[in-house]
């Protein structure tokens, strides 16, 4: 739907009087995706949906209804359902009401017509190149080529009217041998598919797979590790879940609670929620229509801030930073565009200056292990190597990793100067590789 048509339709349906307020969130998703495994495209889909999320407040009683029909009368029907729900609702003295927010700055670089128009044939062609490269190296190719097009609009009765359109292209490749004992992985993500360096993804995955043949066991212990950017991104995501949301902060569950202004990681760690970083080009407003702010979360190791939506900001006596998730999500506000500040030396040099350590491509199935220690559990995957005297000595069998995140970010010895854009779980992050001492690696997964 055209921007003006959509905004008018939502504005018409959000007119309210008699102390009633209405907020309408429109989310249109189009996902075109080719998955391949064992050198064959086995799942090839295109799906399209649009949702209206209507919140109606009757004073401090709020109802939420969601529908996926967007004709004017259907939107009115969804608003009516939300009104009926609000009528059954209890009072919530913390409800901050809906407000008129200024129009957020446009983010034209978030949308690419080349990406939006990328066809199933084009996806297949790109995948074929990957399969041929893998076959040449005696490997099998598995992965995906995904194209996403999304439109979000937020309109409310006080007068907010926000609109954002974005595209994303993602290419992920696992190159592996028959037994999967040797495997290499790489990924690429860009708003504009024309900027996606598929060749680099293919070369990296293939080289890693070849280098990871015949992995050897390595004893459990605490080691110096070199985390590639994706591995850092995976851990950062969980750090965000556990600590940087205003919901867990307001309730005291966050590790940031009562720690503001304190040194909680090494002084070389700065983490910023930065939706305006051109590499990420995040949505410039949140799902309450509040323009996003850049928020310094940790600066030189010191706890500086968390992100808020309007409800949790009110509870904490703060202002919204524009980080509300869609209203059907009860997690609370979350930073979806975190960036770790880059270091000063190339990643290659991080490896070259390591006398002995373990190089980790990324992790598999991370989950919380001990929330009090902000500790995770997961295994290494798709390329784990022993580094000796600055060079890869040999591949090692994947091992279980159990890092306690704040302690881990307190032992970062080096940070690389280049960062990658890394998407995961509806977040897009900007992360460098890094070297960390005293990293716990447990028993191997004995895949051989």
């Amino acid at each position, binding site marked *: 739907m055209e921007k003006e048509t959509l905004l008018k339709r939502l504005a018409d349906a959000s007119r309210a009087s008699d102390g009633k307020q209405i907020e309408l969130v429109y989310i249109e998703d189009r996902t075109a*995706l*080719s*998955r391949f*495994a*064992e050198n*064959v495209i086995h*799942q*090839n*889909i*295109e*799906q*399209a*949906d*649009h949702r209206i999320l209507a919140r109606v407040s009757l004073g401090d009683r*709020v*109802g*939420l*209804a*969601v529908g*996926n*029909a967007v004709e004017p009368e259907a939107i009115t029907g969804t608003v009516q359902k939300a009104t009926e*729900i609000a009528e*059954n*609702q*209890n009072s919530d003295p913390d409800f901050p009401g809906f407000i008129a927010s200024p129009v957020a700055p446009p983010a034209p670089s978030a949308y690419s017509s080349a990406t939006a128009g990328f066809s*199933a*044939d084009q996806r*297949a062609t790109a*995948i*074929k190149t990957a399969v041929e490269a893998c076959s040449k190296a005696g490997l099998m190719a*598995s*992965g*995906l080529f995904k194209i996403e097009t999304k439109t979000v609009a937020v309109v409310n009765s006080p007068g907010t009217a926000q609109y954002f359109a974005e595209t994303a292209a993602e290419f*992920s*490749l696992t190159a*592996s041998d028959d037994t*999967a004992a040797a495997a290499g992985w790489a990924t690429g993500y860009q708003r504009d598919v024309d900027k996606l360096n598929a060749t680099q993804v293919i070369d990296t995955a293939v080289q890693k797979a070849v280098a990871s043949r015949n992995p050897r066991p390595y004893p459990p212990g605490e080691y110096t590790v070199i985390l590639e950017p994706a591995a850092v991104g995976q851990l950062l995501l969980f750090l965000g879940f556990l600590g940087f949301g205003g919901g867990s902060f307001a*309730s*005291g569950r*966050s590790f940031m609670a009562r720690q503001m202004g304190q040194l909680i990681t090494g002084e070389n760690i700065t983490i910023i929620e930065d939706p305006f970083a051109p590499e990420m080009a995040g949505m410039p407003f949140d799902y309450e229509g509040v323009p996003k702010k850049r928020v310094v979360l940790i600066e030189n190791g010191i706890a500086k801030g968390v992100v808020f939506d309007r409800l949790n900001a009110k509870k904490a006596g703060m202002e919204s930073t524009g980080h509300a998730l869609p209203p*059907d999500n*009860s997690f609370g506000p979350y930073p979806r565009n975190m960036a770790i500040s880059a270091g000063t030396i190339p990643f290659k040099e991080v490896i070259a200056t390591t006398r002995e350590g373990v190089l980790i491509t990324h992790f598999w199935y991370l989950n*919380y*292990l*001990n*929330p*009090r220690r902000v*500790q995770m*559990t997961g*295994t290494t*995957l798709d390329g784990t190597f022993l580094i000796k005297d600055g060079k890869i000595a040999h591949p090692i069998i*994947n091992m*279980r990793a*159990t890092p306690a995140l704040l302690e881990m970010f307190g032992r970062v010895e080096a940070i690389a100067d280049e960062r990658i854009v890394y998407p995961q779980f509806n977040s897009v992050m900007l992360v460098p590789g890094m070297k960390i001492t005293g990293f716990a690696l*447990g*028993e*191997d*997964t*004995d*895949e051989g």
Partner: protein
Amino acid sequence: MSDSLIEKSGAAAVDLAKISGVTYADCRVVHQTEEQISVRNGATETLSRAESIGLGVRVLVDGCWGFASSAELTPESATELRDHAVEIARASGKLAGERVNLEPVRGVVASYRTPIVKNPFEIPLKEKLDFAGHLDALLRAQEGLNQTSVAMSFERERRFFFSSEGSKIDQEIFRSGAGMTAGIGGGHGNAVERSYPTSGGQYETAGYELLERLQLEAGIDKIAEEARALMQAPECPQKTCTLVLSGDLVSLQVHESIGHPLELDRVYGSERNFSGTSFATPDHLGKLRYGSELVNVSADPTAAGGLGSFAFDDEGMPAKNSPLIVNGLLVGYLTSRETAPRIGAVSNASMRAKSWAYLPLIRMTNIVLAPGDKTLKQMIAETDDGIYIQTPTTWSIDDRRENFQLGGEIGWLITGGKLGAVVKNPVYSGNTVEFWNSCDAIGTAAEYRIWGTPSCGKGQPGQTIATGQGTAPARFTNVKIGG
């Protein structure tokens, strides 16, 4: 949306009379209605109703799959969608392996409705919210608790299936559930939590009568007392000992280390780049000692009340109870029409999609570990040095589903056959086959229950789906505990 419009749209989508090269088509029209109610710390957190309707069309062209879905539900758009799916399938043909050739099945015309006593959508919203608020108030009245929550949800799914083989299936599935948590937060992340009936709540294919059956009020004193005990408890020690698991934790163990590794699409590598593979390759079929003689596991979408219960899967195959492990021996997999012939079998109706928008994948239905003959009390009494752990909190398992680490909300050390000190953050780890072979006791039928997992994840785009695991408490020897 009228049934007549749905029927016309479905028929149009699978009409292959005027297109060439398409050997098969199916269409699912799904109308989902969901209600979410949650109260946290005395305030309503969620009160919402969501509806979604649309259709997904899957086609097989020259042995290659294509799929397209849309919220536009008319016969004309269904035809366009089918044609678009055909285009996509032709693109798949650029990188085809062995051509998919479905053995024809006879079309089925049938209907099914979850047997329910009380339609949850006919219970007034206010009554349900008041009940959640009442439970939360009872929790908050307990000494020491400062983080409380109560959540319930209800889902009705009208699911139509049409195929070019003549199937027309109409199913109406109801899912209901509720749960609550008693927490104490002491700042700096020092927090403990106990849940009832289990973490995330208990969910079944059932109506509102389930909430009465769960006897939620009766669980409050116990979880409050245990939360207070946890706040003072030491961390779980690190050692190797006998492990006794509650039924809900056995459910998680079954889900992660038996259900997932026996999904045959995963076994053949379809999830290698995302959800992982499996150690349990078909060369192990009929040979692998997956567990001890006590371990008997089946996939049973016909189990009454199981969250993964239905009459037909999303390929129109009839639900049936299929053995996976018999007396410890691996004998079967969760299969689809495409994968089953590769092991000389026919589909056991395991293909399911999150909604109309998604492609069906092989998913767990209800994975049932048959009960044994020892009560939980007997298992503990016979244990000299061990730990009893209840209620899942964390899980991680490697990409081949072998090396795992799982944890529970609360543990009790067992010494000389008696439960002793409470420990917090109890975790344990092991290797799938070694672990199940160390199983030396399974609880009785009286302690057996089908636990519901409302949101098991798999696939890209990510699909969460409801599964069930039928389990009783169980005991395992020589297990490593502690983080």
